[in-house]
Structures are given as C-alpha cells and as structure tokens.
C-alpha cells in the first residue's frame, strides 16, 4: 500500500485556561490514504474539531499544539518536540507559516465548517467570494475565475447558477450555502478536504442531498476526506475507515464494516446501543451511564472506566494505547485492556461498580469545580 496522504502522529493539543490545562487532544494518531473518506466520530467535547483544526494549524490561543507530528504528502505541516525543560517548540522540519498559507491551505487541503452562515461573508455576494478564492488560489484572470465559479456552482447543484451568482448569502437556504462551501472547497481541486460536521445543521432531506453530492464528487475528483461527525448514521453511510474519539483520545480505529459488526471497544458498543434506529422499533434504549467527564481533569487509567460496563479494577490504573487487537487481515485497533493484545491483569481483576446513579456524581464533580 502506498504511503498515506496524511499522517497524524501522537498529536497533542492543550488549552491553557485560567482553571488549568485542558488536554483537548491527547496523543492521537491516524492516517488518511488517497481517495479515502476517514471518519472522526465522538460526542461533543471529545476533541474532534480541535484535532482537525490542528491539521491546518488553526488552533487558536489559549490552545497550543504541544506535541506530535503531522505529515502531508511527505511534507511536515507541523512537528513539535519538547526541549530539556519540557517546553514545546516547533522543529525546523515544520514548514513556515507563509508557505503553509500560500501552498497548502485551500490549494491542497480545504476545510468545510459546520455553520455555513458563519463561513460566508454576509456583505459580499456568493459568487464574488467564490470568484476571489479561485482567482487567488489558481492564478486565473477575473473573467476566467468568474466562469469557473459559475461552473462550480452548477456542479454542486445550485439552480440557475448564473443568475444566483450575484445573490448574497442570506438569500440562500442553509443547504445551498453548504453547497457553496463545498464548491469553494472543491474549486482548487485539493487532495484533502476536512469536513467538520458539515451536515449537522441541516434537515435530513437536505443532509441526504449533500451526502449524495459528496459521494458523486468524490468519485469524480478522487478527493480524500476527513469527516468529523457525531452521527453514527452518517458514518455508516459514507466513511471507509473510522476513528472513534473519547475525551481527547482515539479509542477505536477500524474499517467501517468492522466497526459496526465486530466492535472491539466498549465505548463504541455503548454508543451504537444508545442510538434510536430509524429502520426498526427499539423498545428500550440502552444509554451510556453518566456524562463525559471534563478534559481538564480526566479520570486516571482508562478514561472511559467511569462509565464502562466492562470496567475492572485494573482499568483504574492502566491507560491503554490504541493497538491492533484482531488477527484479521485488516487492521483493527482498540484501546481496551480486555483484549489479549494487552498483557495486563484484566482477567484476574475484580469488576468495578459503575452505573446505578454513579454517572451523575461524575458529572457533578465537574460542575463543582465551577463554584
């Protein structure tokens, strides 16, 4: 298999807040191969969005990338190491800011955000914004860029593209605005598109249209995607491989079919159990106990042990890495010590008492720190 298009290795992002250091992303590694659609799934607060904004070095203060390395097409987008005092610094391999802006952002890697209204400037016309983007990034004349822009709008299914070119963003519906952003992302034919919950704010019928469009465009342009979502349904529909995140860590990494049919991590399993199904009636839902603890003060050991139905005493002390747990042909990683790949004392260790109201205490200890 060829070298991955994007490789994220041991990425760490921390937010230095007044209340302490929030370890939003805590040592995650994943890669994206050419033409692949890779999902990043988890509940709110899992660190999905922070992880993808780190790829483009868009983490804003007080956030900082404090460790890890991101490589794209053999170039180092960022590499952070720690000096003797433990202070993180960027290594020389990291490409400079100007170059990242000019060569990579928009041209090689594009990003689509959740809220299309906030990503479009309300005082400029839709067409004008798209044209400017194409003009700058593809070195075309204004007239050529305009033609390309209309062509792109038509491509993503905007009706009467030529006439609507001069409309302002507020004259477009939510679904159409998201189409414009997709057009903008595709305009420079980038190799990778990062999509951060692009369909979450849309109605189901519109979401289905957009997913169809992405499928179709991916086939035509062979673009790779990193798709951030919380919706297991969307994951099942479009992803090739999936990374499940919990509290800043990747807990399971597998091809989509294996993830649903050969689930290896208790969190993924619990997540799948708690989703109501549109295609069958489920009498009783099995919710995950409690809420996700805060990343400012994560539980020791495995971070999921406070809510995990399979937790044992040993889980309180060991924080497992995400390693290959099946001997199948395809790689299937999970961070849970119940698997044989981890040589720990799980088998002999007594089960932990979780659940039975305990979940609420967990969250409230987080609430108390506010007082």
């Amino acid at each position, binding site marked *: 298999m060829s070298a991955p298009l994007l490789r994220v290795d041991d990425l760490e992002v921390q937010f230095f807040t007044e209340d302490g250091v929030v370890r939003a992303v805590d040592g995650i590694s994943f890669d994206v191969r050419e033409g692949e659609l890779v999902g990043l799934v988890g*509940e*709110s607060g899992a660190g999905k969005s922070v992880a993808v904004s780190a790829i483009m070095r868009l983490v804003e203060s007080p956030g900082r990338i404090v460790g890890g390395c991101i490589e794209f097409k053999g170039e180092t987008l960022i590499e952070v190491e720690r000096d003797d005092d433990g202070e993180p610094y960027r290594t020389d391999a990291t490409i400079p800011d100007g170059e990242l802006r000019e060569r990579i952002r928009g041209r090689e890697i594009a990003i689509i955000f959740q809220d299309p209204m906030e990503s479009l400037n309300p005082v400029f016309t839709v067409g004008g914004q798209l044209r400017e983007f194409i003009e700058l990034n593809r070195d075309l004349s204004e007239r050529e860029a305009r033609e390309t822009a209309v062509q792109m709008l*038509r491509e993503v*299914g905007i*009706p*009467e*593209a*030529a006439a609507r070119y001069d409309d302002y963003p507020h004259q477009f*519906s939510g*679904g*159409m605005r998201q189409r414009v952003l997709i057009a903008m992302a595709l305009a420079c034919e980038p190799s990778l598109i990062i999509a951060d919950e692009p369909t979450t704010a849309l*109605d*189901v*019928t*519109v*979401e*289905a*249209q957009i*997913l*169809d*469009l992405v499928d179709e465009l991916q086939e035509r342009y062979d673009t790779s995607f990193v798709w951030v979502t*919380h*919706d*297991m*349904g*969307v*994951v*099942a*529909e479009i992803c090739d491989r999936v990374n499940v995140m919990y509290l800043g860590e990747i807990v399971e990494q597998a091809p*989509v*079919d294996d*993830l*649903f*049919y050969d689930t290896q991590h208790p969190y993924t399993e*619990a*997540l*799948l159990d*708690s*989703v*109501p*199904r*549109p*295609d069958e*009636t*489920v009498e*009783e*839902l*099995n*919710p*995950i106990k409690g*809420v*996700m603890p805060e990343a400012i003060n994560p539980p020791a050991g495995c971070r999921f042990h406070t809510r995990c139905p399979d937790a044992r005493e040993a889980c309180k002390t060991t924080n497992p890495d995400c390693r290959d747990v099946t001997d199948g042909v395809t790689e299937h990683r999970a961070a849970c010590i119940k698997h044989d790949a981890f040589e720990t004392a799980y088998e002999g260790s007594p089960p932990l008492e979780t659940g039975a109201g305990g979940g*609420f*205490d967990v*969250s*409230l200890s987080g*609430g*108390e720190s*506010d*007082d």
Partner: protein
Amino acid sequence: MTERASSVSDGADTASFGEPLVELRNVSKYFANEEGLFSWLSFDRDADGLPVETGREWVRAVEDVSFTIRKGETLGLVGESGCGKSTLARTILRLLEPTEGSIYFKGTDLADLSGERLRNTRKDIQMIFQDPQSSLDPRMKVGKIVEEPMQAHGMLNSEDRAARAQELLEKVGLDPQHYNRYPHAFSGGQRQRINLARALSVNPDFIVCDEPVSALDVSIQAQVLNTMRDLQQEFGLTYLFIAHDLSVIRHISDRVAVMYLGQLVELADKRELFENPTHPYTQALLDSIPVPDPRADGHRGVLEGDVPSPIDPPSGCRFRTRCPELIAPAEYDLTDGEWECVRSFVRHVKRRDFTETDPDTLRERFFDGSLPGGGAGVLLSDAIADIAADDWEAASERLLSGFAEQSVCAREEPDYEVEPEQGTDRHTVACHLCRDGQD
C-alpha cells in the same frame, strides 16, 4: 408525594385513558410579513388612481390542521425546519392566538377561556423547550425554578413546595441535594431534566415537548428519552412530542403526524407509518435518514430542491413542487415513461442547470430523440423553441402552466383515508395517489 399529586389531578380529571384530551379543529396561524413601519404600503406606478397599494403579505405558518391527542398517548409531530411544528405547539398552548379554527382541551374550547379560567387550565398544560440552556433562568437556583410554577398557581405552602421540588428532582433522575445549585453547574442533559421537573411540578395532564432532545448528545438523548417514558407511565402524562429526528419519534411515539409547509400530510399509528408510509413526503423523509448500519442498502437523496416559501405556498398539494410522484395531467395521454421524461425536462429547465440550447440536442438528451404526441408534444416543442431563442423564462413558464399546474395535485387539496395495514387506528394521507382507494 405521588399520592398527594394524584389526588390533586383526580379532582379535575374528566377524560379517561384513550379518550381525546386535546382536539384541534382546522387550526390555522398566519403571521403578517412586515419589516418596518410602512412595509404594508407598496408603490405601483402603473396603477390607476393613487400609485400606492396597501396589502399585507401573510406567512401561512400553519394551515388547516386537525387532529386529536388521546389521554395517555404520545403523539409525535415530525417535519423539517420551518414547517410550522413549533408554531403549532405554541398555538396549542395559546401562547399564540390561532388565526382560525379552535382547540379543545378536555372538551372546552381554549379560545373561550380568559383570565382566571385560562390560568387554571394552563396549569394542566406545560411545555418543555428545545434549548436547555436558555429555558432556565441562570440567576435562579434549581429548587426555585422547580417551585416557581407551583407558586404561580398557588399550590401548597412554601415548605411543601420545597419538599415536592426535591422529590421531583429525584423522580427525574437528579440528586435532591442539588436543590441549591444554579443551572450552570449542570450539563445539557441534566438541565433538560430540570425542565422536566419544572413542567411536572404543577401536575399537568398534557406536556408539549418541542424538540426536547435535539440539543443533546446521542448517549444523553437516550437517557432523557427513557426518563420521559418512565415519567409518562408513572404520572399518566400525555405528550405532544415534536422532533425533526424520525429515529427519536419512532422510539417514543404511539402515533405520528408528519407536517410539511404548515399542513399535515400523514397521520397514523407509529407502526403503520413506519412500515407502510404512504405519502411521498413521508417516504422521502424515511429514505433520507442515514441508517447506522454500513450494510444497509443506500437509498437516499430522493428529494430535490428546497421547501417553498410559506408566504405563497403552491396550490393544491403543497408538496407537489418537490414530489417525485406528481400525477400526470389527465388531458394528456402520456405513458409513465414519457411523463417521467417530461418531468425531468421541466425540472432541469426550471433550475436552468444545463447549457445546451440546440433543439435537436435537447430532444436527444431528454426525450431519446422523439417527443410524445398530442398536446403535450406541441407544448414541449414550443418550450424547446423558447430555449433555442434563449428565452428561459418563457420556456419555464410555459412548461409549468402546461404541465405542473394542470395536474390534479395542483388543482385540488388532497385529503384521504386509507385502510391501515398495521393495527386499527385511522391512517389519513393527504396525497392524490390515494384517490383510487376512495369512494
């Protein structure tokens, strides 16, 4: 507390389980579409006399909706954003006055009530809002929040109110010790539980839940849904449950109503609706949801375009402009295949999403080279001539008035009832495709 609670509600109770508790008859709600002081004035230079016209545009948010909610059941109300779900909910609560129609609660018309009697009835109808953040006063302690409705309705003395608030907190799955905390110390799911406790405090019969779980993460959603269901059984509550998420609706409802652009398009027992969806819009909604199963056969994106504006909704069936099963006008004798081609052509011309204008190319692309015969063919070749002359407006106008507007879907408002396949509940469908089963 439970005994005391039930004794309070028993006194006023008249409807028994399964009887209609809430009944809507032809309810409509219009809003005046005005921005600014003189928006109702418009200038028209060509007019006779004064070049000024007065006239308001009306947003027809809810139009002619009738259904009943039986005591003890959960009626799910589903639809996309902007279809009027929330307006309908607020109208039922009489937070908004219906423009037309009447709403009966336990047999009394709510519109007839005012003053003290309306206040007393409000006690029996409560609401839970979508955003758990903004529906709780951040400066009030949780205990006070739960007690406030009781205080407003003069229930119990302050000591008993505090005791009841604590019991309710426990009932909804919170720690009674949290009585003295502020809302900010709670997560979204817990705040929604506080909302539940507040709604329950005055012993309502009926709770309108407006997207109560859409702002929550899936795992938390499941917790809150389960709690709501338990509470319903314990207190004999009736819910009107509004959501855009069909999976949630499928989980919690007994019967489901589907709304589109201010009107009900289908109403049936939950099993019937999900197993035997009859309205093309319901089918499209069901097909659009991503199924959390990678092996499920992909079948989605069946709808094109956007929801039309409720200011000037389409005539007849409001869904017809996006309907994949629009019925062919009776006066043209078209085969299904021909009608399919015609509709595709009309759609593309309307969206103007192709650039060819040459008549032969168009005939080849949309009709395999040969146009249908009769009046339809004449109409089509006229339209193709319009396009060749680069007059897209005229082509589009010609096609729409010649085909789409002639269909029965555009001429009559549909309203039919079909034989249910599952269960015995009535299954109403607003679609002309069902007209054969009628009479």
